[in-house]
């Protein structure tokens, strides 16, 4: 039996050169997981930061070491001021975000399912959305006073427009074939909304929540810096004015942890509600 391969036309191949293994060329773009890389980078960053202070390379006044920030944070937790400031900020975020979200979802839904609401709403939202919402805080203070309502209004207004856009776009992207299917089986309009449109739009709405939660966090800090006695933003501003940079960074750390916590809660919510994806 000759070892020469045969072609389709049963002609023996004359090439007797030695066989070469096929070289793998598919690497380079495959995503690999490096579980400990992020943690290692984080630890390294803190170690370098701490060392620069210990060795006197940077003044602790301008950049206090992580140990001083941690100590300031522990002190705040012990004397209760951390909880007082955190409670005030969380209350403002919660109320402002809820107001903006409820109103934004209602308007977004109306625009998503009603042609008149869409015709009226799209130009209005396009016109108002780019306004930096914090610029309206003085106006809200004029309308609602220096107390809580003006801060709720600023956060609510900032959350409202992205929620409208997220909800409207999410409804718009619900596959039309599912709606046609439901219509073809005679489902009533309200059932189609409840059983098809709402669950179909949920991924887009939840993605919007992620954006609006970040906006609420930014706006609460800005609003508290302009006019508040308590709140993480007010605390950070006061610490800055008094050159207490360890406390300032402790406040920033709290804000960062707050953002991380909100993101984690939303991720859990997404995992629970969107198991089907």
């Amino acid at each position, binding site marked *: 039996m000759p070892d020469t391969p045969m072609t389709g036309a049963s002609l023996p191949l004359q090439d007797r050169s030695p066989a070469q293994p096929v070289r793998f060329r598919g690497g380079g773009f495959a995503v690999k997981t490096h579980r400990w890389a992020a943690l290692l980078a984080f630890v390294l960053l803190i170690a370098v930061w701490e060392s620069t202070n210990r060795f006197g390379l940077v003044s602790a006044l301008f950049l206090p070491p992580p140990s001083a920030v941690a100590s300031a944070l522990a002190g705040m937790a012990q004397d209760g001021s951390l909880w007082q400031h955190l409670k005030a900020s969380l209350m403002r975020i919660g109320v402002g975000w809820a107001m903006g979200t409820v109103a934004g979802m209602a308007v977004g839904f109306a625009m998503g399912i009603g042609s008149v609401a869409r015709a009226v709403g799209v130009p209005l939202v396009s016109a108002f959305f780019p306004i930096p919402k914090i610029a309206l805080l003085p106006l809200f203070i004029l309308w609602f006073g220096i107390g809580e309502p003006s801060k709720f209004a600023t956060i609510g207004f900032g959350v409202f427009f992205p929620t409208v856009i997220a909800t409207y776009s999410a409804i718009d992207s619900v596959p039309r*074939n599912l709606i046609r299917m439901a219509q073809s089986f*005679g*489902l009533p309009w309200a*059932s189609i909304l409840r059983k*098809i449109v709402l669950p*179909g739009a949920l991924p887009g709405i939840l993605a919007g929540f992620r954006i609006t939660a970040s906006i609420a966090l930014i706006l609460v800090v800005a609003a508290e810096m302009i006019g508040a006695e308590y709140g993480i933003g007010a605390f950070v501003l006061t610490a800055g004015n008094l050159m207490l940079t360890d406390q300032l960074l402790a406040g920033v750390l709290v804000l960062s942890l707050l953002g991380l916590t909100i993101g984690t809660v939303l991720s859990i919510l997404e995992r629970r509600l969107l198991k089907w994806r």
Partner: protein
Amino acid sequence: MRLIIKDLCHRYDDLVVLDGIDLTVQEGEVLAVIGPSGCGKSTLLGIAGGIVAPTSGTIAVAGEVPDGCLNPVTFIFQDFALLPWRSVEDNLALVLEHHPLSAAERRERIESGLRRMGLWDFRKALPKQLSGGMRQRVGIARALAVRPAMLLLDEPLSALDAQTRELLMEDFLALWQRERTTAVYVTHNLDEALRLADRVAVLSRRPGRLREIVTIEEPRDQRLEPSAQAHLAAVRDRLWHLIRAEAQLADREIADA
């Protein structure tokens, strides 16, 4: 149930899609509709099922509906149209929930539909966990759950591989053998039409006009027999002759557009 279409025209803005369609689908008949891409086959089906409003013309149904029929004219979709967030059994439940059925009857319809399609063991699965063929079987089971008098099938096998198509054609044949449900079956595939239909309506390229209706004389259950092949080949040639030039022109029109 019969479907009667008279002088049906449909346009999207200035684009005339269907023009002067006159067609009657008889009780218990399977009518295949073929034609080049963009000739309005799916629009015709949408109009027949009441989910697209025709520009002009009349469309009517007549005849008895079976006992327990909840949705006389029922679609089976090319892309299955299953809710991805609902399990297989809940996808069937969706089309029953707005009807005044007892819980026991609802369960019986779901179980019967799923068992007939061999999906009972997969009732808790999500659509993403099923193969394309199984998803289409869920679509068929969903249609059977409402006990339809007429099925409108919009290229139900075109998204599936050849083996799955063959298996599902057997399912359709068994279904029509058992229940004689009237059906309009839109397809691009001549072999599907030859295997499943009693008559084949050929549409011209856009605007879709009815060019001819070709009758397939061979009984459906004998079409794989050697004795049937000569007749089926002749019908196939006839159908291909009718649509070949139209399909070429339609392709060129799409390329130009």
